[in-house]
């Protein structure tokens, strides 16, 4: 457990020292969302109808932006090789890095999403479900993203390859995330969608660290 805490603390400290990385993700999310009213016009009804979808798609893309550097910095400077030789299992280390990634991308996105929902005239009744869905869904983005980031490690143009690999896998999160937020906005039950998101989270929590660790070992051979 001490290894998990040590790696988590280090990654958070690094993210904090390079504050720009976190700010970039949040700024990208905010700007991309704000572009929509310009693109589709200021009609409140139309914006309210697409709000959940817009927020989720842009959150997904914003999370994707930061994935490339999840393992790459450690790979480039030899830290990853050294980490793989630590007595702490690589799976636990991947989990620590995913938690750090979520705390520095998914969580800030979840926090500012309600503000941006306001810009899109999102129905007030949908806010709790929107935040709950993002809290359950964004960790899945980090976990699935870790598999993609590990698989594309060392590849040329890894960023593009990463998007091609990971975006299709994000579709279930997108579907249930949007459905939960919209159901609540329409006055329907959002619980089943949130439960499905929770199931996705539980599944990826159990599988993603193993898959990503296996891919990392392959990259280090």
């Amino acid at each position, binding site marked *: 457990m001490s*290894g998990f805490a*040590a790696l988590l603390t*280090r990654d958070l400290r690094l993210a904090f020292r390079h504050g720009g990385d976190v700010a970039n993700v949040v700024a990208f999310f905010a700007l991309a969302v704000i572009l929509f009213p310009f693109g589709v016009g200021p009609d409140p009804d139309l914006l309210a109808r697409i709000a959940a979808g817009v927020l989720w798609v842009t959150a997904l893309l914003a999370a994707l932006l930061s994935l490339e550097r999840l393992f790459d910095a450690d790979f480039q*400077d*030899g830290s990853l*090789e*050294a980490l793989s*030789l630590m007595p702490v299992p690589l799976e636990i280390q991947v989990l620590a890095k995913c938690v750090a990634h979520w705390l520095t991308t998914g969580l800030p996105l979840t926090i500012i999403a309600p503000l941006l929902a306001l810009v899109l005239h999102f129905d007030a009744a949908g806010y709790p479900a929107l935040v709950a869905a993002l809290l359950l869904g964004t960790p899945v983005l980090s976990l699935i993203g870790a598999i993609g980031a590990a698989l594309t490690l060392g590849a040329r143009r890894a960023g593009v390859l990463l998007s091609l690999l990971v975006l299709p896998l994000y579709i279930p999160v997108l579907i249930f995330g949007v459905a939960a937020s919209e159901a609540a906005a329409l006055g329907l039950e959002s619980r089943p969608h949130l439960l499905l998101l929770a199931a996705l989270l539980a599944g990826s929590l159990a599988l993603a660290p193993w898959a990503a660790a296996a891919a990392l070992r392959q990259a280090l051979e």
Partner: protein
Amino acid sequence: MAGRESQKSFTGEGLACRRGERRVFKGVAFALTPGDALLLGGPNGSGKTSLLRLMAGLAQPEEGVIAWNGETIADDLAAHRARLHYIGHQDAVKPALTAAENLAFWAGMRGTDGGVTDALCRFRLDARADWPARYLSAGERKRLGLARLMASPAALWLLDEPTSSLDAEATEILLTAIAGHRRAGGCVALATHAALPVPGAQALSLADHATWRQR
């Protein structure tokens, strides 16, 4: 020496290594007892790093067996990792963290945190402890990487070109650290081009085992 044979030891037999399509070496063997040092020599590309990576369990040999105390390391890689330090070409130093933070992180990953200040002093980095590592020179970063050896205990040290970009004083510090480690019953395997004065060290030249020249 005969009495030592029965003690725990680190051995490799009939080792062959392939990198991609190329067979790097074959028929390599070594045997280290506690307190032994092994100097790996050979020209560039003869497989010194590859052999160290096999010893660390980072890659599997194509043929042959590496064993610790008679047990194949591949059978229990976790236990093998817990007893070794591997310092590769790259320093694994994070520029945004201070020297002390960098070292404390690696010690923390191995479950210790007591030896950091001491290790920084040993490698004459105590004055740099609170500097972000990005302000350290190449030699100082290398020393910071090597300070990991002192910050947490491990029985086996695997060092890849440890003296590159080190000045004479730092090389001396490293040699003293190696001597102390061997006195305490540790093993060292190091790849080097420099003629390092490591008393009583076994020498293994990979040029003798190269398969790529014969083709």
